[in-house]
């Protein structure tokens, strides 16, 4: 019973940790707008946390620059299992307009397993919520496998 309770709760209380990997700040603002009264992701239990140790879902924005890559990987490795990695915007997925720049090491999927990609420059809040909801499903599945 306790195990089932934990599994159900994992789906309903996903806490977000946001990493900026050299983003232009567009996606960062859109992510915050998801939590505003208009879209109110808190009704699904989403909460933005400040420490990677508290997080369930890691949201990465930006094209993963040379400077940020080691920090991104270090922050992701500090997130306790089960965790889910969501890329937000086209940058971490493909490099977007920064592709083949000398300072860009992306895409992120070269370095870690990415669970959900939310494309767009910047993605609409509806798309972000959709991607995060998908991530909670994956989180529940990961919890169930344990």
């Amino acid at each position, binding site marked *: 019973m306790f195990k089932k*309770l*934990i*599994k*159900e*709760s*994992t789906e*309903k*209380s996903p806490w977000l940790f946001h990493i900026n990997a050299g983003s232009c700040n567009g996606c960062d603002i859109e992510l915050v707008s998801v939590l505003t*009264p208009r879209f*109110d992701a*808190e*009704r*699904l*239990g989403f909460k933005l*946390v*400040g*420490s990677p*140790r*508290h997080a*369930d879902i890691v949201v990465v924005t930006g094209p993963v620059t040379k400077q940020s890559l080691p920090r991104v990987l270090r922050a992701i490795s*500090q997130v*306790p*299992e*089960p965790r889910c990695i969501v890329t937000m915007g086209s940058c971490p997925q493909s490099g977007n307009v920064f592709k083949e720049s000398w300072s860009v090491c992306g895409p992120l999927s070269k370095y870690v397993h990415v669970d959900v990609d939310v494309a767009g420059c910047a993605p609409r809040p509806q798309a972000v919520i959709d991607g995060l909801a998908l991530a909670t499903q994956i989180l529940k599945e990961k*919890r169930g496998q344990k």
Partner: protein
Amino acid sequence: MFNWLTVLETLGYILIFPGFLFCFLVGLFLSGVDRKIVAKMQKRVGPPLLQPFYDFFKLCGKETIVPAAANKGMFLAAPLVGLASLIVLQMFIPIFNFTAFSTMADVIVILYLLLIPALAMILGGAASGSPYAGVGLSREMVTVIACELPLVLVLLAVARTVGSAMGKGLVFSMSEIVNYQSANGSLITHVSMIPAAIAFLLIIPGETGSHPFDTAEAETEICEGLLAEYSGGPLAVFKLSHSVKVLTLSSLFVALFLGGLGGKIAALVGSFGLSAAAAGMIGGLLGAIVLVMLCLVITIVFISLVHAITARLKVEQVFKYYWTVVTGLALLSLVLAWYGF
């Protein structure tokens, strides 16, 4: 003589009512209501009422990481010590006419036990070895010191009022304070106790570390400070003790200032003409329900409303506020009580 029934009764007190299970359910329910009400005030839909329960169980299922720089034993023991002291504290607070443990000077025990959760958080944060926790713990210490002075003055004022009415000097027994109230009406009806009651209500958000006094856990600037390195089970226990602290402080307020309702409940139950055992049972149950309702009102007005309409203060502003406005109110009440108003 060793009596099994007494052992069983004590275990029931510790584990079920008014101990762990009661604290767990009501505490998390109160913080769920708090989050929902804040959301409504900000014109949001808000999380479901059971959200703190989901958060708690989810955190129980997460991996617990102990940082390499941490002192492992203290890091893992601190949350349990904090929660345990809160649950013991809850048993010393009478629920109207029902008291689990009663001694000569519970008020002083309560004062000490109320300090332990904050100290446990400071110890745990210090043991985690994180610089964010370092900033958080210095702020938490300042907040604790800021709240402690007016709290002591409020408790002294209450002890003096009840003591002078009973001709005993100072009364430090919670059950005597509550019994006095159920016989002679709530303390809040005394002129001298009104400033103390207001001061106590203003202490509640400071003691529980909610807005605008949450400098120690400022999640937007120092990543929840003391909790920055915690994950999984220990974090869940810390979140739980946060919620239980709201329940503890609001039930302490009810016991200190609204204890007169106990007499009304006893009279109401007595009017049904039941046997003594049944009347005690129903009275206790009714008392618990009334207590939860009152705690709900206190939480909504003094935690949710204050949270929704204020922004976070700086730590020196918190200190100044408590040592001027709140201490002034408590001191006024103490002086009035001393001269017998």
